């Protein structure tokens, strides 16, 4: 084998790059970066005739003039002048929208990129009676032109052959583009005049208009939007419940197994009480995140997401947000991290910051177990009027409050922050398309994988640290140790819990709840585990369920439970979110402001609730 050759896929959004990338690389691909919704750096490899290739997929753009954060990433890759730059680019053009594709292509050519042009969606072009003269196009552009159909797997071999035959050359330095758009389009129109013909008698009519009459209808459009949201929430919460239970069971069984086969000691303890709960904490999110990604990818690929953005733009702007904030806000229900990354499509830095700032108010799936535990403590599992479940209603109210807090804060920030120039809100409305399932599945897989490896590291790390803090105390080091193990009360965590007790006493919390709150910084749902461990440790003989123990005197009172609910609803107790915010805003300033703002709000509302109710 000879040296790897590197090339990149470039093109407009929606031209079929992901599909082609998937077709070329198959299983040999990986996604760098965290799981964003639209931006991720994908790379992969394949070999053909004993030559191996390294491919990068560059996010789709319309031109080399970047405006938003994700376009910036794309153009910097297209104009890469470093030694890492791809040797050449395979340009994926939507053959049915050639005029638009050629604009970016000519810009890239002028900038000094070496190119192969693929005319994708050739099947659609044929169906619509659009004929493209390949030879004439090659002559006009001076580059190889290959018609393909990525989703129908047609033309892939000739493309590989063209890549194989593409002359080797050193990386060219890229230069700024000088031609004005009107000059470029004059050239494009003359090229198309020569190379593109419509079969006589065939007139293509977009099918989207019919659908849009329904989906963008002043009334039914919103009904449909809320039905989709409703289905998404149902799926994220109820469908994910089954795999969640399997994962939980699996970890209980594995834990017991290690407990049996390993000799007692710190190592077993670390594994059973530190590492395994940490791992299960990470994996418990996975079903929900996978389902969320499934919905988001399908909505995005089908073209509905743009409609939802248009539908909600005006409403969101009232709150100081932006139509593009809709997707992040919806994603926030599963987890704030993918939601924050999804804000990269918002071109206005100010709107993006406001959106990121308020996202953690939206109740993520990590809060759900906490809510469920506390709500079952104060409300009966009964219905009134035959249909409404008290607990279910309370949960809905909590979610609603989270959304209201997010919108309210956005509104405040919008008034408080300096206005910027008008955001240029201009979106292409793509045609509806059926998603290509292999690509959808592959994308879900990639995103889940990067979630586990990136967010997982933080959650697992914090779990292990917390385990150490709650198992060791100063007495382990001073030699004044009595008995076999350090009791929780004497551990560092216990000391920490005691230390913050004066601060949290007015909220109705004791030191045990203090520890549970501190431990929640790994992930909020750790609260449930910590609370049950702590209260079981207090009454080792009591075999009742945690709910019964908490319900007894000395457990958690109704007023404390309400106060805790509010605290968890508003506080930003998530180390991973803070780390991601720091990375996305380029410093600790905003995460710290956000953390303090939400913390103060949580503290004050919990204080008020407890003082009024107790």
């Amino acid at each position, binding site marked *: 084998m000879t040296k790897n050759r590197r090339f990149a896929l470039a093109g407009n959004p929606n031209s079929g790059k992901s599909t082609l990338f998937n077709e070329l690389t198959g299983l040999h691909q990986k996604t760098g970066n965290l799981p964003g919704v639209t931006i991720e750096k994908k790379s992969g490899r394949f070999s053909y005739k004993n030559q191996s290739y390294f491919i990068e997929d560059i996010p789709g753009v*319309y*031109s080399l*003039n970047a*405006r938003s954060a994700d376009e910036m990433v794309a153009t910097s890759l297209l104009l890469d002048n470093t030694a890492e730059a791809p040797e050449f680019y395979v340009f994926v053009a939507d053959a049915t*929208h050639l*005029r*638009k594709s050629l*604009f970016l292509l000519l810009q890239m050519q002028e900038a000094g990129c070496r190119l192969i042009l693929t005319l994708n969606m050739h099947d659609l072009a044929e169906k619509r009676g659009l004929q493209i003269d390949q030879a004439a196009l090659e002559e006009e552009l001076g580059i190889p032109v290959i018609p393909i159909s990525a989703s129908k797997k047609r033309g892939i071999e000739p493309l590989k052959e063209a890549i194989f035959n593409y002359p080797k050359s050193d990386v060219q330095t890229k230069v700024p583009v000088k031609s004005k*758009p*009107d000059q470029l*389009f004059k050239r*494009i129109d003359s090229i198309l005049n020569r190379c593109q013909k419509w079969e006589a008698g065939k007139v293509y009519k*977009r099918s*989207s*208009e019919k659908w*849009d009459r329904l989906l*963008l*209808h*002043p*009334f039914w*459009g*919103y009904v449909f939007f809320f039905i989709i949201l409703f289905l998404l929430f149902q799926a994220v919460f109820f469908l994910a419940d089954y795999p969640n239970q399997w994962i939980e069971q699996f970890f209980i069984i594995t834990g017991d197994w290690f407990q049996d086969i390993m000799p007692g000691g710190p190592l077993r303890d670390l594994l059973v009480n530190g590492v395994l709960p940490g791992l299960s904490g990470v994996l418990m999110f996975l079903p929900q995140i996978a389902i969320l990604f499934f919905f988001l990818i399908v909505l995005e690929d089908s073209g509905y997401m*743009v409609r939802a*953005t*248009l*539908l909600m*733009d*005006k*409403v969101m702007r009232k709150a100081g947000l932006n*139509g593009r904030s809709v997707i992040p806000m919806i994603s926030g229900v599963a987890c704030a991290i993918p939601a924050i990354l999804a804000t990269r499509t918002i071109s206005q830095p100010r709107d993006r910051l406001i959106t990121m700032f308020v996202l953690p108010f939206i109740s993520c799936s990590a809060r759900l177990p906490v809510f469920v535990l506390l709500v079952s403590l104060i409300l009966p599992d009964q219905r009134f009027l035959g249909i409404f479940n008290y607990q279910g209603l309370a949960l809905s109210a909590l979610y609603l409050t989270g959304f209201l807090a997010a919108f309210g804060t956005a509104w405040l920030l919008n008034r408080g922050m300096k206005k910027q120039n*008008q955001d*240029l*809100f*201009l*979106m*292409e*409305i*793509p045609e509806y398309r059926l998603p290509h399932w292999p690509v959808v599945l592959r994308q879900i897989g990639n995103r889940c994988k990067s979630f586990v490896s990136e967010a997982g590291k933080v959650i697992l790390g914090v779990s292990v640290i917390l385990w150490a803090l709650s198992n060791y105390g100063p007495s382990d080091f001073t030699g004044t140790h009595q008995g076999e193990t350090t009791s929780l009360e004497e551990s560092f965590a216990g000391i920490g819990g005691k230390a913050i007790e004066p601060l949290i006493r007015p909220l109705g919390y004791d030191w045990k709840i203090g520890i549970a709150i501190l431990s929640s910084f790994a992930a909020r749902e750790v609260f449930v585990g910590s609370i049950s461990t702590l209260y079981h440790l207090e009454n080792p003989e009591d075999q009742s369920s945690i709910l019964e123990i908490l319900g007894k005197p000395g457990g958690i009172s109704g007023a404390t439970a309400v106060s805790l609910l509010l605290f968890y609803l508003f506080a930003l107790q998530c180390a991973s979110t803070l780390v991601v915010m720091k990375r996305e805003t380029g410093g600790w300033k905003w995460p710290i402001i956000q953390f303090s703002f939400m913390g103060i709000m949580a503290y004050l509302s919990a204080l008020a609730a407890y003082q009024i109710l107790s």
Partner: protein
Amino acid sequence: MNLADLSKGKSAVIAAIDEQSLAERLQEFGIFSGSLIRLLGTAPSGCPLMLEAEGTQLGLRKEQAALIKISPLD
């Protein structure tokens, strides 16, 4: 007359685009002064507008549409 005044389903020719960055963005889609533009409809709340020009469908806010001067056909 500007684009925000166009009624649904009607077409017009773009006469001038009064804002530089908007004009630049539209140019990337191949839309210039002289291009034919049609209003497909508006989002339920009257904004944004949904337009079609040069084979592309676009969503654009009303206040930006107001910066695009048009001369109506017929």
